[in-house]
């Protein structure tokens, strides 16, 4: 086939592409993502509060003042630090647990199906339930205090004070590790049985096999799980809200709770929209890094190049 004809065929197929079929998707995307996002951006530039809410389109335009206030006069930066650091810690803690659990249930054994189901329980429980149960267990003089107390350990407050940050990490880790487990398990299914055979024939020990044969297969799923877990934890609202209530103790005033309180308790919708936009940017950073890494953003052409 000559170069000439190949080129002509591509132009032909480009011309006849039924682009109109993208229409419904485009409309949906505009309705669900673009318009709300645009409105949120616009709201973040307005002095929108309880006094102006009723005719909000006429709310005074104040430019970037909400952003300035969010950064200089609100606990936003502190909340960002709490959210991001706690999300990173939870992700890093749950990663090895999830991988280990997936590896442990990889080979057949009696009762494997049961174990696999049990592993998923923390993940399928609604965050509201998880939060309520843990809050009850961890309150002053509660089950955990008395259990530790009878072992001679006195830990102090779980639900307020500096330790509450670790409480949040423990509970979030408890409820989210099966996510890594699920994705790694899926990754393990994609390892060909020939690979296992070949490794066995070459006399590889379990660690060598794991490190040089299995892990390379898991790099993709683990990276994906890390990114999603990070985003999920940064956005987590229900768990901290249910466990610590509002006003939140300052050590667990995460970004989502701060935005919520600003919006729905203080009625500063403009300010909280600015906070939400700031949090969007923070969430976008790891997402961008990930998309660059797997080149999902450049499509097939980019991958080929």
């Amino acid at each position, binding site marked *: 086939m000559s170069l000439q004809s190949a080129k002509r065929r591509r132009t032909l197929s480009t011309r006849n592409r039924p682009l109109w079929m993208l229409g419904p998707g485009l409309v949906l995307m505009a309705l669900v993502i673009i318009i709300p996002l645009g409105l949120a951006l616009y709201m973040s530039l307005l002095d929108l509060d309880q006094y102006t809410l009723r005719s909000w389109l006429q709310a005074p335009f104040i430019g970037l003042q909400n952003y300035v206030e969010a950064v200089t006069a609100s606990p936003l930066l502190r909340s960002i630090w709490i959210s991001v650091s706690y999300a990173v810690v939870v992700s890093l803690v749950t990663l090895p647990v999830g991988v280990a659990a997936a590896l442990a249930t990889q080979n057949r054994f009696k009762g494997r199906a049961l174990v696999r189901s049990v592993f998923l329980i923390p993940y399928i429980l609604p965050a509201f339930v998880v939060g309520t149960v843990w809050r009850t267990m961890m309150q002053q003089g509660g089950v955990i205090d008395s259990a530790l107390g009878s072992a001679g350990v006195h830990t102090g407050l779980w639900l307020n004070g500096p330790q509450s940050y670790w409480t949040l990490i423990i509970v979030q880790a408890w409820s989210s590790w099966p996510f890594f487990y699920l994705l790694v398990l899926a990754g393990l299914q994609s390892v060909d049985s020939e690979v296992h055979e070949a490794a066995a024939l070459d006399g590889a020990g379990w660690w060598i096999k794991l490190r040089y044969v299995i892990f390379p297969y898991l790099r993709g799923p683990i990276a994906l799980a890390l990114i999603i877990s990070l985003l999920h934890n940064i956005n987590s609202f229900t768990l901290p809200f249910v466990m610590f209530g509002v*006003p939140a103790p300052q050590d667990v005033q995460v970004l989502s709770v701060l935005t919520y309180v600003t919006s729905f308790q203080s009625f500063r919708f403009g300010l909280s929209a600015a906070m939400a936009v700031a949090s969007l940017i923070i969430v976008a950073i790891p997402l961008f890094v990930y998309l660059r890494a797997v080149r999902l953003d450049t499509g097939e052409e980019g991958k080929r190049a």
Partner: protein
Amino acid sequence: MRVRPTLAAIAGIAVLGLALQGCTGSSSNTSSTGGAVNGAGKTLDVLVAANTLYPDAQKQWFSDVSAQFQKETGATVKFETFATTNDELTKIQTAVVSGQGPDIYNLGTTFTPTAYSTGAFVTMTDDDWNKVGGRDRFVPATLGISGPDDNDQIGIPFASRPFVMAYNKDLLAAAGIDKPATTWDGLAQQAQKLTSGDTYGLAVAYADSFDPWKFIWGMSIQAGNPIIDGKTARIDDPVTEKAYQSYFGWLTTQHAVDPASVSWKNAQAVAAFAAGKAAFLPMTSATSKVTLDKSAVAGHYAYALLPTIPPGQTSLPSGGKAATSIISGDNTVVAKYSQNQDLDFALIKMLTSADNQTDYYKRFGELPTNQEAATALETGNADLAPILDSSAQSVGTPFSGAWGDTQLALVNVVVQSIPSLSSGSVSDSDLETQLKAAQATSQASLDKAK
């Protein structure tokens, strides 16, 4: 995929508003022809708080009200409920932005200032008041939080739930105390005396999201500080600091409170009292009767007024107000966008009539705001006296759009002090730092108030 929930929620409300703004103002108004309003074929939409104590009785009440209203006007009533304050706020915000939603709202009294500041509810003219039966039919104190002044009222008092204190008669008698103290200092002393073993003098919910500010506001106003004074916030006032010190002191100085109460919500404090583990349950209302009458202390407890002499004093200082409670209960407001305002007023007139208010008290234990019904109740029930007294001596929290933020700031001081409280002492310097922050928040909110 989980997308930033708050951002989506805010934007969602906005979109809704945009979409619905064009839809209002099309249907016709109800015609008012002199006496009875004709509402044949119409339906009113009323938003009320879900009654978690008596859910079945509430359903029955809904259908009874609707039936009675249909008989009187031909219109039916559809009730919607909200389960939590957050639920309430979301519904109101959506309605405010979209100009669509319930015709009538039953709001908590302390939320009335915020509702007023949105400008979305009908300011009652004299004519409007007449349509609901006249201002005179209500207990005067209950009108105290209907609006910033007499000419700008949006809230029509519907139910009264004043705060009182429950005490365990047996525990007090055993300790040789003949009646509860009327000063906060006296109460602290009695509580200390009543504490022994695992029985404590006071049941206090330090971790509740609402209780703490009621104590602090109450002690402050008794000492002459209304917290919001015109355009000035006064959270950093010495009398307010003193209020916090005595509130914390029950645990750190008198040791008269269960140490576990640093993580208690209100329900846990009620439970401790109900189990006979506490002598006093301050900051409760008549609605706790249901729980208490089914508990170990049934028949062994009574209600009394909360102390009205501020901490550190033996008599009411000049400028102080002997507030027994915040004006607590429900106000009814009518939405400006409602197409059936005359019908709305007719329903409110029916619900605030003496008969219906008495009936409501019998069903739910909430006090009438109708003067005639309140007087009738007083003559028949001696044990209700402290509760009715408290209703009459209630003082309204400041009527300011900044009150929501101020209230939150007052609670936040307690929330952030819990770690020190738990370890045994809240230092004055820590407390002052917290108060300064709360003062700044409240003042900033006041500066924005319009």
